[in-house]
């Protein structure tokens, strides 16, 4: 049975009304899960949805329930998260676990590698991008659905928990020795940051490439919440400003605003401060986390029979670029 037929059968059983699935198409992005867009037609009414299904092998091994609850935590709020509809952790009807969310139409994905993609409205996009991130950081935790699945760390332990996790990923998945990232891990352990100002929802992959915009200066959706967790909000800021997401010849963050402007916007929106020592730690950590993800991608590509080119690209080009960034960061730390 085709995926469209399986999905139609599931939706019909769920809603109790005959439902037809039309225009089912896989879309790129969200490399940790297969992502599809489709229209559900029932009782003459058509509505757009996104299906996220676990793949046989993926870039990041993440908890789909956490992603679902993170999206639900911000649905309908001023952070442009889509509406999460249903989670099937068993997922037998589509062969693998999956969840469904409402589709936000009218937006195009940004690209982490395109040059000057925001042209005449880069400042407006940057203002929204870092304001939304600030609002995620400022969101009170009490009552958020994500609390049902996410562990709440002590503010003093946020850094250790994340570093332990991603260093463990490198240890488990590395197929060729990586002296650069291992040196960075040792520097991070030897020089921990101050405790988090507050424990916040951390999107986990907040960057250029993970939002939709309308082509006229408006962000319409924040995507890819698959690495969401609770932790130090500076983690997201460090990740969003990693040089990997920017053209080396352009001083702006991802072609949007300057680093100083980005930090100022985030401070205004979050009401939080940016300790330079903490920011430097989370900036180096971002590159370690990146290298861990690219290391996993290379392993997943190999284990999956070399079939998915996105995993090859991540585990090869992106890993090498991240090594350059890490080496530059380490030299700068040593010189300071």
């Amino acid at each position, binding site marked *: 049975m*085709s*995926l*469209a037929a399986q999905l139609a059968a599931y939706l019909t059983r769920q809603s109790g009304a005959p439902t037809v699935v039309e225009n*089912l*198409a*896989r*879309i*790129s992005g969200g490399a940790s899960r297969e992502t*599809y867009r489709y229209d559900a037609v029932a009782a003459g009414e058509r509505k757009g949805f996104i299906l996220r299904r676990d793949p046989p092998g993926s870039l990041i091994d993440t908890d789909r329930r956490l992603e679902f609850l993170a999206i639900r935590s911000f649905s309908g709020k001023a952070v442009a998260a889509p509406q999460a509809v249903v989670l099937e952790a068993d997922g037998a009807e589509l062969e693998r676990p999956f969840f469904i969310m409402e589709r936000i139409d009218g937006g195009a994905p940004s*690209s982490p*590698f*395109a*040059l000057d*993609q925001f042209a005449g409205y880069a400042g407006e996009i940057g203002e929204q991008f870092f304001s939304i991130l600030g609002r995620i950081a400022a969101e009170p935790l009490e009552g958020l659905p994500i609390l049902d699945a996410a562990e709440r760390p002590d503010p003093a332990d946020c850094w250790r928990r994340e570093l332990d996790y991603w260093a463990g990923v490198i240890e488990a998945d590395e*197929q*060729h*020795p*990586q*002296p*650069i990232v*291992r*040196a960075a891990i*040792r520097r991070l352990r*030897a020089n921990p940051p101050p405790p988090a100002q507050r424990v916040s929802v951390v999107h986990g992959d907040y960057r250029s490439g993970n939002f939709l915009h309308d082509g006229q200066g408006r962000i319409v959706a924040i995507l890819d919440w698959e690495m969401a967790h609770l932790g130090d909000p500076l983690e997201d800021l460090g990740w969003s400003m990693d040089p990997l997401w920017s053209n080396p010849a352009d001083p702006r963050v991802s072609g949007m605003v300057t680093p100083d402007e980005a930090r100022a916007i985030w401070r205004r929106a979050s009401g939080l401060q940016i300790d330079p020592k903490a920011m430097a730690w989370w900036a180096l950590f971002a590159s370690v986390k990146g290298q861990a993800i690219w290391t996993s991608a*290379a392993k997943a*590509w*190999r284990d999956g*029979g*070399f*079939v*998915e*080119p*996105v995993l*090859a*690209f991540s*585990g*090869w*080009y992106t*890993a*090498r*670029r991240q*090594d*350059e960034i*890490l*080496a*530059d960061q*380490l*030299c700068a730390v*040593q010189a300071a």
Partner: protein
Amino acid sequence: MTPSLPDILIGHAAALSAPQPPESSGDYLAGRLGLLAMLSVLAAQEASRGVAVRIWENGAIREVFASAAAEYDPAFAGALAKAASATDEDRTWAALDDSNDSLRRLLIRLHEAVETRRDSALDREILNLYQAMAKARRLELPAALAG
């Protein structure tokens, strides 16, 4: 560093011959082919420079070992000196990568020892080597295909 060039080329064959269901056609298929095109350009860069880069990196690591060998305890100094005096006779991709694997493992051990001793001069030398290694392995993203 993984993946290797032979892996990438095998991956092209695997990706192009893997059957795709109907819902994976259209824009998704176009994006997938675009990625394969980009990987082809990067593979051409690697094919032209990869062997030379590996030979250079292995030599550069050996140079650091040669200058550091006398500084450490006899057992570790012996391992460093032995690695420093080796050469890459077999210049196939696999042999160079095997050799690089061993050298990088020893380099990690040396750097840990340098940090423990707080030897800032050798620490700086190793960090500069990391910078040169990463730069030498850089792949240039083709601007016409990015985005």
